[in-house]
C-alpha cells in the first residue's frame, strides 16, 4: 500500500515537472524542472527494485547529461529569446487538442489489454538471493548483452567525434541571418567575440 502511495506521489511530481518544462519561458527554469522530473523517475525505478538504474538515472541523466545542457545554456546568451514568442502560433492550439487525444488513445489501449507475465523467475527475492540487482544485472550485461554493450561503446565514440566535428569553428566565413539578405551578414570575428 505504501508503495502504491509513493508511486502516485512520484508520478504526480514527475508529470507536474514535465508540464513545467514545456510551459516555462526561461530555459534555466525548464532545465531545473527537468532535473526534478528525472529524480522523481529515479524514485519510481527504486520502487520497482531497479536499484542500479535509479542510481544511473541520477548520475548520468540528472548529473552528466543535464550538466552538459546547463553548460551550453550558459555559453549562449539566451536572455534575448525570452522576449520572443515562445510557442508556434497556430500549431499551439492543434497540439493542445491533439496531445490529450493521443494520451487518451494510449491510456484506452493500455487499460483495455490484459497483461500477462512471462514469469522468468527473476523476482526481487530471487535477485536478492543471487547477490542483488547490481550483481545480476552486471552478469547479464556482460554475457547475454555483450554484443549490444560493445555497440553502445561504438555509439558513444561516434557521438563524441560527431560533436567535436559539428561544434568546431570554421574561420574566415561571414555569417548571415538570412542567406538571401546581404545586409544581415556580420563578420565572423564579431560573432566569435559575442559567442
Amino acid at each position, binding site marked *: 500500500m505504501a508503495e502504491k502511495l509513493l508511486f502516485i506521489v512520484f508520478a504526480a511530481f514527475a508529470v507536474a515537472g514535465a508540464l513545467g518544462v514545456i510551459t516555462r519561458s526561461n530555459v534555466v527554469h525548464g532545465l531545473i524542472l527537468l532535473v526534478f522530473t528525472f529524480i522523481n523517475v529515479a524514485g519510481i525505478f527504486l520502487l520497482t527494485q531497479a536499484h542500479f538504474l535509479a542510481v544511473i538515472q541520477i548520475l548520468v541523466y540528472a548529473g552528466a547529461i543535464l550538466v552538459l545542457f546547463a553548460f551550453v545554456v550558459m555559453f549562449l546568451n539566451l536572455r534575448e529569446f525570452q522576449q520572443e514568442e515562445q510557442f508556434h502560433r497556430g500549431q499551439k492550439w492543434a497540439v493542445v487538442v491533439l496531445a490529450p487525444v493521443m494520451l487518451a488513445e494510449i491510456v484506452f489501449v493500455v487499460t483495455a489489454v490484459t497483461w500477462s507475465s512471462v514469469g522468468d523467475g527473476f523476482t526481487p527475492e530471487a535477485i536478492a538471493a543471487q547477490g542483488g540487482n547490481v550483481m545480476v544485472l552486471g552478469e547479464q550485461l556482460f554475457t547475454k548483452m555483450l554484443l549490444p554493450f560493445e555497440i*553502445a561503446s561504438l555509439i558513444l565514440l561516434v557521438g563524441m567525434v560527431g560533436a567535436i566535428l559539428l561544434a568546431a569553428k570554421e574561420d574566415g566565413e561571414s555569417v548571415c541571418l538570412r542567406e538571401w539578405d546581404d545586409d544581415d551578414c556580420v563578420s565572423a570575428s564579431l560573432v566569435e567575440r559575442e559567442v
Partner: protein
Amino acid sequence: MVIPIEWYLVLSAFLFAIGAAGVLMRRNLFIVLFSIELMMNAVNINLVGFSRLHENLIGQNFVLFTMTVAAAEAAIGLAIVTALYRNRRTLMVDMFDVMKG
C-alpha cells in the same frame, strides 16, 4: 507485482504525450531537446515496468542502452545547437527553414 503494470504504462503515456506536445509547440530549440529527453524517459519507465512484470532483467539492460543513446544524442544535439547559434544568431526552430548554411 505490488504496483500494477497499467500504472507504469499510464505514467509513461503522460510523460510521452507531454514530451511530444513540447516538441510540437515550443519554438526554443533547447526546450525541444528537453522534451525529447522526456520522451526517452517515458520509454525507460515502460521498459523497467515490463522488466518487473516479466520477472527478468532484459528490460533493465535495455534501459542502459537507451541512456547511452540519450547521452550521444544530447552531445550531438548540443553541438548542433552551438553551430546553429553561431551561424544564425537565433534558437527559434521556425527560423531554420533552409537546408544550406
